[in-house]
Each structure stands twice: as C-alpha cells, then as structure tokens.
C-alpha cells in the first residue's frame, strides 16, 4: 500500500515535470518566431468561440480563415499571415485575459476581435497600453474607437457604428413602414443594445414619432411574457428590439403568442441561423433588421465571396463571416502599405485606409477610425432573409 502511494507520488511528480518542460519549450519557440521576425506575421483573433454569442465568433473565424487562405497564396511582402485564435467565451473578463495573452505570450502584430461591443471594449485598454492595433469586425458601439471625444489611436473597426444603425431603423420605420409610435425593448446588460436604442429614440422622435413604451430585460432571461404584456397594453405600432439572437428569438416567439402582430425590428445582433430555430418561421414574419450586407445582393464582389465561402464551408455566409473576411483584407492591405510588421506603422496605415473595396461595401475611415459605408435592410420571410433596401449614410 505504502509502496503504491510512493510510486504514484513519484509518477505524478515526473508527469508534472514533463508538462512544465513542455510548456517551457513551447514558449521558447513562440518567442523566437513572434513579432513577425520569421516568415510569418502573427495575427491574434480574440473571438466568442463558445458561450452566449458563440455563433458570431465562429462565423467571424470562418470568414477570417477563408480570407487568410486567399491572402497567403501570394503572401504580403514575402510573408504569410498566421492566425492565433483565443476563445473569450462571450465574457468580457475572458476577453481581457485573451488580449493580454495574445500580446504578451504570442507577441502578435495586431488583434482582430471581438464580435460584440462589450467584449471589444474589454480589450481596448490592453491594445492602447501595449500599442498593438485592435480591429473589431463587428463591434458597433461608438465608444470603442472614440471615448469622450478622444480617439483611441490603436483601435479600429470594419463595421458601421450603432447610431447609424439606430437612425436607419428609425427612418425606415417612419418612411417605409409609416408608423407613428413605437415601443423599445432593450437588453440592459449590453452596451450594444443601449447604444442602438438611444440612437433610435433620438432619430424617431426627431422625425415626428412617439415612443409609447420603454422596457428592459437582461441577457439569459427566458420568460418575457410579463414585459411583453405591458408593452401590448401600450398599443405600439412598431417594436424596436436591438438585442442578440438568443433572447430576441424567445421574445419574438412569445410576443406573437401574446397576439402582438406589429412589425418588430432589430440590428445585426439578430443575424444568426439560430434565431430562426428559436423563434420559428411564422413568428419571424413581419420583422426587419439593419445589417452590413446581404448574401442576396447582386453585387459581383459579394457573389464571388459567397461562392468561395460556399465551396469551403458548404453553407451561406452571414454578415459576421463577411465582416471577418473583410477585416482580414483591411489589415492585410494596411500591412502591405506599411511595408513593415511594426505595430505603430500598421496603425498609421490602417488610419489612412481609403476607398478599399470590400464585400461589405467600400471602406473609408473617418477621423474617429469609423468606416463610412452603407447599411442594408433585410426582411424575414418564412425564415429566410430577403434583401429589402440599401441605405447610404
């Protein structure tokens, strides 16, 4: 018995030593090739690969990988891009940890991520402090790039910002749907949802509309019937619901069950195949979203991308995949123009991006590092997204 225990202690010590040795070795190799010294340029991707909005992170990762495959056929200035992925589990604290790991351990030249505004904001300080460019493919909150009038010089994005999405939705409701009053239902645990609703309310009231009810929920709730009953009694002609697909799916389903049949509209946070599964096809009729692009758009560049994506993954790309794909090209273009892997030079090149033709539109950065490009409005019909109209800024 005693012998056995001794043997097991010895064995576990030996194993621990082995694991530690393994770690040390790995670290050595990574630091020697890090920072772009060798033939590869390391790019970090800090994405929601699991957790509440995993579908966003996974879609972006697929777009990124497709783009890198294409870019690496030729390489950039003789070098290839290498993607180092970390999973932030859809959690802000994990996102910060992930960014620190990418910067200090993997020594990446730039970070791509995260998918949501909240998880991107959690990385901004790390990027600024370490002077590493951070590009969020889909973080739409304005404070990501510009906080209190001061531009975060290392932070960029590939998508348009919340006020734009909210304003587009308000104009669409008044001009196209001809509604006079609206209810707003927001996810009070999300910066994204709050940002969109603030912009919507401002634009909607400016255009002569009236907000008749304002309610809130928190992410991970499952029962919204009480709140929806309250909204129903206010008799709105339109509901603005800027949330993420998991809760939105449940809300739309429960709203229709309670007999709320008015149009419901949201933003790009709805864009996931899971939404249709959760809400069901019928309840989603008469709902609209503002989005970055539509795979039904006849534009040649979009159709080429859709074809390449389908060939690789055997499914149609959503907006997150498109923006992930665009982000890789956005960064690659800047590295090419910078002619260097120095993060400072990449940053300067990123800031000067102008008229870059991408899948989600022609990208020109304004002084806040925010792209100026068009928004697409989609309508759900029998569970399918239909291209409705394109709105320019």
């Amino acid at each position, binding site marked *: 018995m005693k012998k056995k225990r001794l043997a097991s202690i010895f064995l576990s010590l030996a194993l621990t030593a082995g694991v530690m040795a393994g770690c040390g070795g790995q670290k050595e190799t990574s630091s020697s090739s890090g920072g772009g010294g060798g033939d590869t340029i390391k790019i970090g991707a800090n994405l929601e690969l*699991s*957790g*509440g909005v*995993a*579908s966003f992170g996974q879609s972006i990762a697929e777009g990124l990988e497709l783009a890198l495959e294409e870019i690496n056929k030729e390489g950039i200035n003789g070098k290839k891009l290498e993607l180092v992925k970390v999973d932030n*589990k859809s959690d802000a604290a994990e996102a910060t940890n992930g960014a620190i790991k990418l910067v200090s351990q993997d020594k990446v030249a730039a970070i791509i991520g995260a998918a949501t505004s909240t998880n991107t904001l959690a990385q901004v300080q790390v990027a600024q402090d370490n002077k590493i460019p951070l590009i969020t493919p889909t973080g739409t909150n304005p404070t990501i790039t510009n906080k209190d009038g001061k531009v975060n010089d290392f932070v960029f994005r590939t998508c348009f910002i919340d006020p734009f999405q909210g304003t587009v939705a308000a104009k669409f409701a008044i001009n196209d749907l001809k509604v006079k009053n609206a209810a707003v239902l927001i996810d*009070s645990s999300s910066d994204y949802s709050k940002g969109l609703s603030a912009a919507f309310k401002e634009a909607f009231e400016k255009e002569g509309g009236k907000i008749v009810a304002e*309610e*809130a*929920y*928190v992410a*991970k709730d*499952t*029962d919204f*019937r*009480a*709140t929806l*009953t*309250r909204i129903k*009694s206010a008799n709105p002609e339109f509901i603005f619901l800027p949330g993420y697909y*998991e809760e939105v*799916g*449940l809300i739309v*389903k429960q709203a229709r*069950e*309670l*007999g709320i049949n008015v149009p419901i509209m949201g933003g790009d946070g709805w864009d996931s195949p*899971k939404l249709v*599964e*959760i*809400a*069901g096809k019928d309840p989603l009729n008469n709902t609209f979203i503002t989005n970055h692009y539509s795979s039904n758009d006849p534009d040649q560049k979009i159709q080429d991308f859709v074809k390449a994506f389908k060939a690789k993954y055997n499914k149609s790309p959503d907006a997150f995949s498109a923006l992930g794909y665009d982000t890789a090209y956005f960064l690659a273009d800047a590295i090419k123009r910078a002619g260097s892997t120095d993060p400072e030079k990449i940053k300067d090149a990123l800031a000067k991006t102008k008229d870059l033709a991408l899948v989600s539109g022609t990208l020109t950065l304004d002084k806040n590092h925010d792209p100026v490009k068009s928004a697409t409005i989609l309508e759900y019909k029998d569970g399918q997204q239909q291209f409705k109209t394109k709105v320019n800024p």
Partner: protein
Amino acid sequence: MELIQQLVNGISLGSIYALIALGYTMVYGIVRLINFAHGDVFMIGSFVGFYAVTSFHVGFFPALLLAMVSCAILGVCIERIAYKPLRNATKIAVLITAIGVSLLIEYGTIYLRGAQPEAYPSTVLPDKKIEVLGVTVNSQSLLILGVSIVLMILLQFIVHKTKIGKAMRAVSHDAEAARLMGINVDNTISATFAIGSALAGAAGVIFGIYYTKIDPLMGIIPGLKAFVAAVLGGIGIIPGAMVGGLMLGVIESLVSGLGYSLWRDGVAFIILILILIFRPAGLFGKNVREKV
C-alpha cells in the same frame, strides 16, 4: 385585463419553478441535503429529450419517459459517487461537493457538445392559443400546470401510501433508528434521488418545449429560483414547493408587469432573505411536522 393576463403569465412561469422545486424539496426532506446539482440534472433531462426528439424522432411521451429514466440513473450515480462517501461529513462539506458536482455537469456538457444553444423543434406538441375575454392562454402552459399537479399528487401518494414512502419518512425522521429497524437506508436514499431527479428530467423536457431554447448553463437560474420556491413553501414539504413555485412565478410576473422588469430576479432573492429571517420554516412549515 392586463392584470389577469399577468396572473396567467405568472402561473405558467411558476409551474416550471414548482416542477423543479418538487424534486429539490423531496431530496432535502429525506436526506437534509441541498442538492445544488438539481438544476443541472434538469438541464441534462432537457438535452436527453432534445436528442431523443431530433435524432430518434420519438414523440412527446417517449421523450419524456426517456429523460426521466436517464435523469433517475444520473441522480443515483451522483448520490452514490459524490454524496454517499460524505454521509457522515459536515454539512458544509456536502454543500461544497454539491456545488462541485453542479459545475462538473455544466462544464462537462460544454466539453462534450459545446456551449451553443439548441432549439426544441416546434412539432413535439401542438401549440394552441386559447383566448378567453382578451386573455391569451397557451395550451402548453396548461400542460405544464397539469403535469406539475399530477406529479405532485403522485409524489404525495408515493410518500404517504407506499412502502418505499414509509421507508423514506422513517429515514428522514432518524436514519440510524431506521437502519436498526431493518430499513435499507442506502437504497431508500437512492430511491429518493431517483424520483427527485426523474422529476427534474420531466421539468427539463417541458421547459424545452415551452421556452424552445436550451443550453448547458440553462439550469442555473431555474435551479436557484426553484430553491427559493422550496424555501418559500417550506423546504422538505411537497405541497409547499408547489405553492411556493406558483407564488414566485406570479410575484415575478407582477413585478415585471409594473414596469420593474430588471428588479424581477432581485425581488425573488429579497423574498428568500425575508422568508429566512421571519419564517425560516417556510409558509407551510408550521402545521406539518413530518418533513417529507
């Protein structure tokens, strides 16, 4: 009219809490153990039902039965592996183990199948809207309420009228004395876990059908709410769990209905604290001496 609709909303939400609380309170009543893994057994039940429906294309009742049986087995395994060795340990040790088991089940499930949510197919049960005087009642919420009541009556019957129920009550009263009287205490406790977990499994399937979305961390909040419901009614008392669950659901709906939807969870836990301060035995705690 809005008030009546809110009551209806609250009762359907509360039936789910009640269904989970029944298993919770039963296990506590017999072994004096707060099984924090109960909410996760509920989650497993939901997934078993989901895979039964989507992969094997079975109907509602076979799926429900399969989930109940799998959860019963899981419950017995948890009891045998995690709790039995600690039978004579301090209460706090068992409580910490329960939390450990809960995390193990949650993250074990994420490891096995990923964290992405699944949506229950809408074809499992017909979903009809019934309108009475402007109040919308969902046929599925009537089903949940019905199932909860039937299971509660069945549970009362098992506990008070059968041999195993007698053994349970004896063990709950004094395990040592019961053992001396020739009752197999280990088997009785296992049976308790089997029944409690089967109830959680049933609740999981019904929750999946009613709310569509299921994910590996879905058991946490309903589990906590069911705990509050059980304490509210008097932990260990079966009708207490039922009433506590329904009350909690109605209170939450009314809080949301007044426009304080963000306070909903807060109110649930304030109730828990108030009950613990003023009526630690729960609403039904005084009259019933035998806690089963």
